[in-house]
């Protein structure tokens, strides 16, 4: 079984159908970039994978857990699936260290020195060791997002989901966040990224998905995907974003 399997997933918000019969398999170690216009269902797809949104029909399997089942143990699953948000969502009342160790402490029962070591190690991987005792309002957007990534890494996830994580950043801060992602990619992390960074997708992703009106409209290995788009919709989208 693949690490992530979506079978005929349908998601509606009221009368509006956001995902129409989406099928997707993600193997361990894959790096998948998801692109598409706003409102095409990219973020919703990502949020359905860790159960932040419940699907209306179809099946979502992640690491053998039936996420679509209302009785699924989503807590245990989420402890293994990192999710990084566009708006960082650090906990502003906690220091960087406490942000990172909240999961290990509460979910895993790791405490004291061991928890601090986890925080230091996670921060080292995003290059922010010196910010251990800072609060989020003392960090730049790029630093906050790297701490948010470290917060996920501290849980040793099997899968990481990134929801437009550079979209809220000033242009000069995007690079430092993308470099962290590239390092994770090199270490073999399985990653799904909703992104507008086409160059990054082309360079790092193993597969790119183009979402259009709630479906995965076209997909393929990064190189062919960008060089020889098959559908008119993808050509027109690429034409609009690559100038």
């Amino acid at each position, binding site marked *: 079984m693949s690490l992530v399997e979506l079978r005929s997933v349908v998601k509606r918000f009221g009368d509006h159908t956001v995902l129409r019969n989406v099928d997707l398999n993600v193997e361990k170690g894959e790096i998948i970039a998801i692109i598409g216009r706003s409102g095409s269902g990219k973020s919703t797809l990502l949020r359905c994978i*860790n159960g*932040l949104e419940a699907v209306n029909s179809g099946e979502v399997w992640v690491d053998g857990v039936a996420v679509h089942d209302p009785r699924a143990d*989503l*807590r*245990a*699953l*989420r*402890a*293994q*699936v*990192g*999710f990084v*948000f566009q*708006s960082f*969502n*650090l*906990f*502003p*009342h906690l220091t960087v260290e406490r942000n990172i160790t*909240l*999961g290990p402490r*509460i*979910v895993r029962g790791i405490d004291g020195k061991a928890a601090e070591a986890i925080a230091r190690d996670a921060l080292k991987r995003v290059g922010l060791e010196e910010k251990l005792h800072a*609060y989020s*309002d003392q960090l730049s957007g790029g630093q906050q997002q790297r701490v948010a990534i470290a*917060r*996920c890494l501290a*849980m040793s996830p099997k899968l990481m989901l990134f929801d437009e994580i550079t979209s809220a950043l000033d242009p000069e801060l995007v690079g430092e966040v993308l470099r962290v992602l590239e390092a994770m990619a090199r270490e073999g992390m399985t990653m799904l990224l909703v992104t507008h960074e086409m160059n990054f997708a082309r360079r790092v992703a193993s597969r790119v998905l183009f979402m259009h009106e709630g479906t995965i409209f076209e997909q393929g290995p990064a190189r062919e995907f960008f060089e020889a788009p098959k559908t008119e919709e993808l050509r027109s989208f690429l034409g609009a974003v690559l100038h």
Partner: protein
Amino acid sequence: MIRDLGWIDVFYLALAMRWTIVLTLLGLAGGSAIGLLIAAFGTSRHVPARLLAQGYVGVVQGIPLLAWLFIFYFGFPIFGVTVPGWIAAAIGLSVYAAGFLGEIWRGALVSIPKTQWEAAASIGLSYTKQLRHVIIPQAVRIATPPTVGFVVQLIKNTSLAAVIGFVELTREGQMTAAATLQPLAVFMLVALGYFCLCYPLTQYSRFLERKLRVAR
């Protein structure tokens, strides 16, 4: 038997302040207990619970504290229970404070952005742990300045208990004024007493507001 206003009167006024403080603390304790329920009901997923909380807040905020004090002072004897003024005052203040504290706390809880819940959920915290470690700590920070502000109101409002015969600072002032025929001087002292209680709290509330660390 008119006598001069002397140090002994100042001393008695100062002593009466402790009943103002006790009454405030009783109202705060009772008001917090009921207010927590109101805040919990007000943020509940169940519609009837929310309606109950809204109804309570609407009724309490729509009726003046003086009326609540009369309701409990004159209401209990109808059921054959005569309560001393201080108990009626404490109950009236509690009911009244709960209507305001409950609404302040409910507002603080719902003001925490949904994304904070999601971030907490996405690292694997249960609903109650999300509340305990992420939502409530931030809501407490948001709610503390307005809560302290309301306590200042509550201190001053305890003066209404004078009308049902409870001898706190204002009632002591009325009696001293009657005995000395120097109402202006006496009530200046009474005002000074309230000021000494309230001003430090107001400053404390300002201080707290400056060091908030919460999601906006």
